[in-house]
């Protein structure tokens, strides 16, 4: 589903991604961990070209993302993205947030879009909050609306950048539950997160990144239970102590 090869990214003199290769199979859930500043967000953002890689190639669902002729706005519909800070549109209701792109990019009528949007909100358990504005929702509810906003476009892949890091602990579970259900429905997912419990139960593969490169990867049992690299061991020791 995703074939990213030799991705490099420079921010001026800063070399943030140093030749990352990432292949994600259909229906696979890849879980990415790594210290702050190791380039996890930059990698995700390259995968929908919110960030332009300095070099490398990215093919998603058969489409060459970096080809100048590719209509990036069409491809992005197929690649859902969920952000740490939710980024809901504050001037719109939950339903408005979910239906905007369905109407403007998907070309659906308002009635069709509302039906699609309500179904997406239903999937995240918030159909009864359709008329609420983001400020009237808890952080966990806002993040679920953000997931519904991506899901409503029927993406082939979903990218999650620390979706629960900004949430109070008691609200994390609801978001993880929605992500687990998405995974069970067969969604291909790349998840940057520190939620090790979720990784153990839902991830097919765990990738450890440091200094802009993939240091180690394998099943959750292998990477969490018996990490080979010293840096992986040190990092996992750290987050386990805090968990």
């Amino acid at each position: 589903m995703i074939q990213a090869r030799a991705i490099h990214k420079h921010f001026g003199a800063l070399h943030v991604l140093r030749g990352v290769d990432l292949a994600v199979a259909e229906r696979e859930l890849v879980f990415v961990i790594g210290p702050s500043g190791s380039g996890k967000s930059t990698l995700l953002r390259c995968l929908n070209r919110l960030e332009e890689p300095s070099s490398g190639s990215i093919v998603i669902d058969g489409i060459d993302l970096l080809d100048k002729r590719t209509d990036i706005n069409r491809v992005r519909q197929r690649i859902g993205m969920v952000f740490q800070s939710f980024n809901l549109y504050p001037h719109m209701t939950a339903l408005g947030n979910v239906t905007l792109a369905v109407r403007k990019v998907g070309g659906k009528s308002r009635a069709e879009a509302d039906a699609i949007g309500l179904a997406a909100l239903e999937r995240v358990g918030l159909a009864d909050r359709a008329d609420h504005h983001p400020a009237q929702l808890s952080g966990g509810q806002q993040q679920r609306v953000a997931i519904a906003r991506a899901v409503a476009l029927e993406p082939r892949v979903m990218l999650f950048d620390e979706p629960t890091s900004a949430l109070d602990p008691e609200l994390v579970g609801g978001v993880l539950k929605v992500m687990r259900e998405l995974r069970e429905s067969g969604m291909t997912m790349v998840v940057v997160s520190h939620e090790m419990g979720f990784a153990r139960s839902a991830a097919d593969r765990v990738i450890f990144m440091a200094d802009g490169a993939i240091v180690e990867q394998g099943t959750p049992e292998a990477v969490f239970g018996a990490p080979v690299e010293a840096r992986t061991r040190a990092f996992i020791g750290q987050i386990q102590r805090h968990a």
Partner: protein
Amino acid sequence: MSFLDTFFNAAVMARYAPDILRGLLVTIRLAALVVVTGLGTGLALALLRSLGIRPLNWAIVFVVDAFRALPPLIIIVLIYFGLPGAGWAPSPFVSTWVSLALVLMAFAEEIFWAGLTAIPAGQWEAARSTGLGFGQTLAHVVLPQALRLTIPPLTNRTIAITKGTALGSVVALSEILGAASSAVSNSYNPSPLTLGTAAYLVLFIPVVAFGRWVETRFAWKR
């Protein structure tokens, strides 16, 4: 002469009321034109600036800073007395309109621009990640939020600049103040000024109230 005879002389007022009324109509037309064209061009400049084309942005900033720095009266005088030398002789009405519209454009551009840049990058990214284009994101996500932020400073600035219509009297425009001044010199009595003051209140109190209404109407729960 008593205070009442001086400032509220009924005979003088009745005689010059039609002049002041005509002046009021001129002021209304002028103010409406200034508001529409000033805010329209200001918003257009701010949107152009958001495209991020360097040389264009330098030009916009230069023009905007110039018209924010110059006193409106100077601009009116320059246009009315200076432009005929360059081959175009605008009427008092057009001179005043163009001058005030340029000043409002400059201040409005800065206010709109500040509003646009106050919207967090995450809003752009979320919208773009769903496949919305630059223009769609601007129109449906960024601009509606930016406009709400700009309404309070924009109403204040718009009211302040629109009151500058009185400056038209300097180039012999018969707006409220111009009509009242000539009535005073013809009648040797300041009562027409009282009428003029009343005309300004009648015109601008609703405008100020409208500004207040717009501010509450567009405040939304964050």
